[in-house]
């Protein structure tokens, strides 16, 4: 197991529509702000175990932990730009999808 350096959240793709989901306290969420945050290696392992359970249950695919930082509002933001892209949606077509919500719909 890699050394635990940062808080982590569990990211996956929803099986039926492929959209990005985050493991929250009550299940898989589309909003990363509701993701459960692992603060240590044991909590991260617990998240991963839940991820494996839901892979077996055919709920999600492509499950992995991502390092995050916690903002003043308590919401996790991925440290790497790839995962930030997954959180926000594409940086183009800002009239569509969750990127529209994030940008206020500006084209």
């Amino acid at each position, binding site marked *: 197991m890699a050394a635990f350096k940062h808080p982590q959240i569990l990211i996956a793709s929803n099986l*039926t529509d*492929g959209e990005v989901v985050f493991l929250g306290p009550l299940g898989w969420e589309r909003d990363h702000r509701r993701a459960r945050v692992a603060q240590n290696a044991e909590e991260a392992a617990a998240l991963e175990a839940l991820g494996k359970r839901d892979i077996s249950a055919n709920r999600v695919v492509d499950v992995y932990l991502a390092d995050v930082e916690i903002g003043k509002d308590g919401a996790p933001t991925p440290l790497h730009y790839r995962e930030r892209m997954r959180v926000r949606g594409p940086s183009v077509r800002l009239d569509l*999808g969750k990127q529209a919500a994030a940008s206020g719909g500006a084209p």
Partner: protein
Amino acid sequence: MTAVDLRMAQRPNAPMTTYRYDEYDAAFVRERVAEFREQVRRRLSGALTEEEFRPFRLMNGLYLQLHAYMLRVAIPYGTLTARQMRRLADIADQWDKGYGHFTTRQNLQYNWPKLVDTPDIMEALADVEMHAIQTSGNCIRNVTADHFAGVAPDEIEDPRPTAEFLRQWSSLHPEFSFLPRKFKIAVTGAEHDRAAIMVHDVGLRIVKNDKSQIGYQVVVGGGLGRSPFIGKVVGDFVPREDLLAFLEAIMRVYNRFGRRDNKFKARIKILVHEKGIEEIRAAVEAEFAAMDRSVFSHDPAEFERIAAFFAPPPYETLPAASSAMGAAKLETPAFANFVDVNVSAHKIPGYAIVTVSLKPIGGVPGDATSEQMRVLADASERFGFGELRVSHEQNIILPHVKQDDLFALWRMLDAAGLATANAGLVSDIISCPGLDYCALATARSIPIAQAISKRFSDMSRQRRIGKLGIKISGCINACGHHHVGAIGILGLEKKGQESYQITLGGDPTFSASIGEILGPGVTAEQAPDVIEHLVDFYLAERQEGEAFIDTWRRLGHSRFKDVLRREGEDGADI
């Protein structure tokens, strides 16, 4: 949607200019859809794990990308009918987000299909004789061709019958369904290469020998990606009757000796590079000599049957130049610019080839909305015998437009935001989807294309610069063909940030060359400045008639490197 959707029916008076499925083709594609529907059902029920299902979905062009599934639809040799284009638009509306992305392999990608909907999408594609088979996986992919096929004045022969012949040969070929890696074939029949055949696993150039017999120059081992190579000639003149057997021999040599131990060394280009073209040629010729060629024997009647599908439409007899077009150009400068830049010469007097740019200033290269797809379908029916092409430059071609109709067509395109007069110019940028969509990408490419396009938004400046190919990839896999861009841009990750490596001197044509790295990577914000400096230097140094690549070749790479070094010293922080 059903096969009897009258709105989708082929116009009764439409000429046949593209291949039509026979009963066997239609039954095969329907069976494949039914098979995939069952595979999806089993996946959703849990009867198949993701590991088990993944090869099945990939064989049907369905990827899992950064934000969603992505379906890559095959457009064989880039040819579409109006009916097919309308169906692509309807699929975008019904099952996606109202747009699609035309790719550098003449395909179309939907970025947001749901797994549960994909069998219905494939059924809708089958209704119009389309599918997504072999758009992924280690097989022979969609065969691509010159997008001016059949209408270019410099053409020896229309490459589409050959491409269709190869499509049928390679579809579900049992020997080649599990190759060491993917395999891409491109065909051109013209004196100028518009299909980038030198950077394909196999490139075919239709040629005539001194007895005026048609044959093929066969190029092997070209490719881009992590290790770019220009292809090498393995057969100078392969007679048509030997083509399938010769290709079969190449594939067998590759299948036998291609490396399966290392994914990054598994393409045929690595085999050709490591063994040398002489050894590969000897192995191919030995296989060709030893094999039972009777099963690949050429059937002229079958070739002619296929070629008949691509018969020229019923052109009118017209003067070589249209006075109506000439008058409209004088009255409407924007139309004149469109004609000068986006309209190419046609082999039939009075007709023209129109490139419809999918690169509006600041737009997403290759994207078209469903409404634009419908406009293109309507335009092709009204002005172009109902036929369209997709170019590997991610534009749409209307191959048979009367010069007399160009002004009306331009007005129609302009109203739909499709009349950007930049074909081949600096803002006609090839770009892969990059990290905005692609799970493999290491950086975004679309926003870089948008920023450069906006930087050169002055169209008169673009025309002054002239032909200049900028190509952008969001990772080393090079789907954006950056290696063969006169200016190439490769997005990478550097210390946790997006970084862009710039190359100069790439060329995708018969005089192919791989671009050379300019220097250390730059940031996304710096990229447009760097490109602008390079272009300004070119403008200052070019001689009469020189394109960017010509000036770069004459002056040498170091002169262009010096430009950036000087700019950095002057405080431009590049």
